[in-house]
Each structure stands twice: as structure tokens, then as C-alpha cells.
């Protein structure tokens, strides 16, 4: 199987994640879509690593996983705190800041 299919799958997953961020309303779901984007990038990195015949891409995928884990810690803490004060994690209802 040619590696190109994996690149296309990765681009598709990235696009699904990006559209999800734009259309979904729940902060947790938005955040999950962002994680999907990061993992789509991981797939790209590993595929390019295979195409290029170097290991750099696979190492980078590990870095991305570590960073994504750190992001989850910070992100869920922030979403939790706003959920506690508003009883809702909707990104539409948080609208005090405008104009």
C-alpha cells in the first residue's frame, strides 16, 4: 500500500477536527476535536518518517503526545472551572466579553 493514502487519511482527520472546532458548541467536544487534529498530525509525521526513511518523524510524534497530554491537564482545568461557575460548558453562553 502506498503511504500516500495515510497522508490523505491524516488530512481528512485534520479537516474533520478543524470543522468540529468551528461548529460544535460544547467546550469539551471542541477540545476533543483539537486533540483529533493533533493526532492527525501524528499520523502525518509517522507516514512522512516512513517515506523519508528517517526516524525523526516518529520521535516528533512522541513529543506531540507529551505536549498534548500537558495541554489536556491545563485545558480540562480551565473548562472545569468555568463549568463550575456557569453550570454549562457551552462556548456560546460564555459571552460577557464582546465589542
Amino acid at each position, binding site marked *: 500500500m502506498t503511504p500516500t493514502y495515510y*497522508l490523505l487519511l*491524516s488530512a481528512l482527520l*485534520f479537516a474533520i*477536527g*478543524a470543522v468540529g*472546532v468551528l461548529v460544535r458548541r460544547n*467546550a469539551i467536544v*471542541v*477540545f476533543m476535536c*483539537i486533540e483529533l*487534529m*493533533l493526532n*492527525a*498530525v501524528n499520523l*502525518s*509525521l509517522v*507516514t*512522512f518518517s516512513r*517515506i*523519508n526513511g*528517517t526516524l*525523526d*518523524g516518529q520521535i*516528533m510524534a512522541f*513529543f*506531540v503526545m507529551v*505536549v498534548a497530554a*500537558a*495541554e489536556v491537564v*491545563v*485545558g480540562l*482545568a*480551565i*473548562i472545569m*472551572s*468555568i463549568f*463550575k*461557575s*456557569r453550570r454549562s460548558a457551552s*462556548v456560546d453562553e*460564555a*459571552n*460577557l*466579553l*464582546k*465589542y
Partner: protein
Amino acid sequence: MLAMQQIPGAELTLAQGVQLPGIDYGALAPLLVIFGAGCAGVVVEAVAPRPARWPAQVLLTVLGLAAAAVTLGMHLSSGVGDVVTLAGAVVVDGPALFLWGTLLALALGAVLLIADRTVEPGGAFVADAAVRIGTAQDRAQNLSARQAPGAATPATSAMGATGSQTEIFPLFLFSLGGMMAFVAANDLLTMFVALEVLSLPLYLMCGLARRRRLLSQEAAVKYFLLGAFASAFFLYGIALLYGYAGSVTLAQIAQASGGTDRSDTLLFGGLAMLVIGLMFKASVGPFHTWTPDVYQGAPTPVTAFMASCTKVAAFGGMLRVLNVGFESTSWEWRGVLWGIAIASMVIGAVLGLTQTDVKRMIAYSSIAHAGFILVGAIALTEQGLSGTLFYLLAYGFTTLAAFGVVTLVRDSQGEATHLSQWAGLARRSPLTAWVFAFLLFAMAGIPATSGFTAKFAVFSAALADGMAPLVVIALVASAVAAFFYLRVVVLMFFSEPAADGPTVSVPGGFTTAAITLGVVVTVLLGVLPSFALDWAALGGFAS
């Protein structure tokens, strides 16, 4: 069996012949000191009793900044040239050193604002961010903060009057360390990790305001979701460029773009994604949407830190990416960045006109300024580089002091940021009004302020590089932006103050020092800019 042997004067060598990368500790010392101080701050948080934490953290942070500045000075005076270290991941060259110096100086001002506890009793940060808003506990931690420190019982004083979330200091140091690593990163992976190290603590710091906690939390959520979205784009750009060049080192990407059999789609798709991520951090043009909300909602000292230091770091990284990695392909991407610069200047200047909140107005002004800086950054000449570096230095100090002044104008609800409340401020406190007017003049670019010198340096570099139409648009945009700065000046000096208007707090030593630092640098860079200009022009990028 990994038998290690020490070769005198060389790196450690593993038995299998794997070379461990050499580390130039002298050159990296400022970075290591900042991260070390951040780690020490975490330990202080864990072991020190509550009342001792705040003084210990302030002392530790200021000492860390001073030590980093000393090691930076030692490296500068040792006369070592450009250093590429950590297996080519980090490069300490002229621009990196200049930006490190700028970041450390701005961070000193920002930490003074963060540490201040005289303007808002107990400091600008909530005592315990985990307490739910609106509960009795939340009211208690606010009430005790407003009493005189001596009146509070020991139990409440631990939470309120003397209590604030002192984790802010280690978070601040980690964020600063990330910024310093970002401007010195020589490959895109290091840059991505540094980007996250600088961003993640900032997301948290945004949500820690003592007053108006709902706004603050909303700002944190918005900044976090949009920031993570943008860094996903940045990362996808890295993956595409890795596919194109087979490496994420900036120099090798530049080399590959000279001749490779890979599709150009990977190169330009990757560059576009990468630039989107960088532009978001620098709050440029159409990627600015988070800026006004986050600047308004975040605690003002944190806004001061974001507006000055993050902008320096983001543009520092952008300069390196464009100059080192993509100079040879500049013909293809320059048109797009022209468009982005114009969009940024127009959005900042025009939407700034309609703002009614001081912090939002400065946010839109920072978007316009990001456009001006971008004009210099896409002039890939020595003059453009030094002009942009100088602009970052000058703008950072001006905006730091401006947010420092914003913390002083208060009513019973906390900071009075609505513009109508600033009417007639000159009657209540002529000094504050004059200082703020001076800073607004500097942002507008009136001669004898640093803003004028900086704009002159950037625009003349762009003109010399053949971008006359862009310079004309930039001049028109700065004229439009000058209007909304002057509107505030007129409001402060020629309007009647409202009867129930805000008062101007007399700041303690910390805030006074921060504002004085910003104002003095703004004056000095306006009248005697040659020292900083010379330093900015000291060297180009190494790789």
C-alpha cells in the same frame, strides 16, 4: 553495555559510537536559570507555609531574572560569536541575545506589576481559584481582602488579605522561559515545544483574576481553545515541511527549497499553516479575534505581560523562520504577508475607533502595531531586522507602562476601564493623566518618543526594500490610529469628571517602579535611540 569514556575537551561518546550532543552551558545559562528558578518556585509552593510564600516567590523571581541578566551579560562580554548548541536545536546569535535581553527587561516590569499588592489589597489574583464563584467562601475571600490586613482573623487572612494564588510566579517564569527558548529555537520541533511551554502557563494566568472572575475565566477558555486550535495548525505545518525537506531544521528546509523532487504544495502548504500559528500568537490581522477579549478579561498585570513579552517572542520566532528558513522563497510568499500586514493595520486602526473600554482599545492598538511590525519583518534585510527588533523593544515598554497605569484607575468594582469613567482624569490626578497621555503619544508615534523612532526605523527599512505602497498604507493607518489615542487624551484633559467617577490609587513601590521603567525607556529610546539601534544591528541570524 554502555561503557562511557571521557575524551578530554570533547563530548561523551557511547560505546556504540553514538555522539552525545555538546551543550554550551555558558550560552544557554540565561535560559537554564529561568527554568531553574521556575522549578524552585514549584518547590517553594510545595514546602513553604502560606504566609511565607508570597515574599519568597517575589524574591526568587526577581533574583532569577537578575541572575539570568547577569549570565546574559557575561556571555555578551565574553565575546563568543554565534553559538549553535544542543545538536543544532538552539542557536544563540545576535537577534536571540537582543530578544533575550528585551524579554528579561520587560519581564522585570511585568513581575513588578504582578507582585503589587498595594493597588488591590492582596494583589490582583484570586486567593483560591478553585473556590466556586458566588459562594459564601468566594465572598469571604474577597471580603477579607478588602479589610485592612491587621483586621482579618488569621484564618481568613491566610486566604484573603495576604493570600493570593502565588503559583502565578512559577507559571510566569515557565512562560518566560518558553518565550526565550522560542526566539532561540533553530528547528521547528523545538519551536513547537517552546510555543506550548510559553502558552500553557499563560492560559492559566488569564483565569486567575480576583475581581470579575467570570470575565477572567471566560477569557481563559477563549484563549485556550483558540490557542490550541492555532497550535494544531502550526504543528500540521511542521509535519508538511518535514515531508518536504526530510528535516525540521530551518537551515535544511532552506536548503531543500533550493532543489528537491518533492511537491511545492508541501512547502507552501506547510509554510501557510506555520505562519497561521505564528500570526495567532503575535495577534496579527485576521488571526486577532481572541486578542480584545483576552486582553480585557485577563488580570491587567497578566495582560501587560502578554501584550509586551508574547508579542516580542512571537515576532522573534517569526523573524527567524522567515529569515533563516524561507528567505530564498520570499518571492512567492511575500504578497500574502503584504495582505496580512494591511489587514492587521486596517482592522486595528478602524475597529480601535469604536471601542469604549480602555483595555480593548489598547488591544486593538496592539493589533495595528502588529501590522506595523510585520511590515518591518517582511523586509528581509539587515535594516529590516534591526528595525523590527528595535520596534519590539520600544513597543513592549510603552504598552507595559500603559497597562500599569490602567491598574491604577479604580472604583468600588475594581478597575474602571470604561472610557467614560476616564473623563476628566487630569483633574483628579494630573500626573497619571500626563503619564498616560505621554504613553498614548508614544503609541501614536509622535516625535521624541520611542514610537516615532521605531516607526521610522521599520518604515524606512520597508521603503529601502521596495515596499513603498505598503509604507503609504501603514502611514495612513497610523494616522487613523492616532485619532483614537488623541480621543482619550482629549477625554482626560478637557472633559468634566463625573461626580461618582473612579479614583486614582496611589501605587506602592512595585507598580511605581514598573511604570517608571516603561516611561523612562520610552523617553530614552525616543531621544537617545542609538545605543539600542546599534545593539539591534549587531548581528544577523546564524543557523
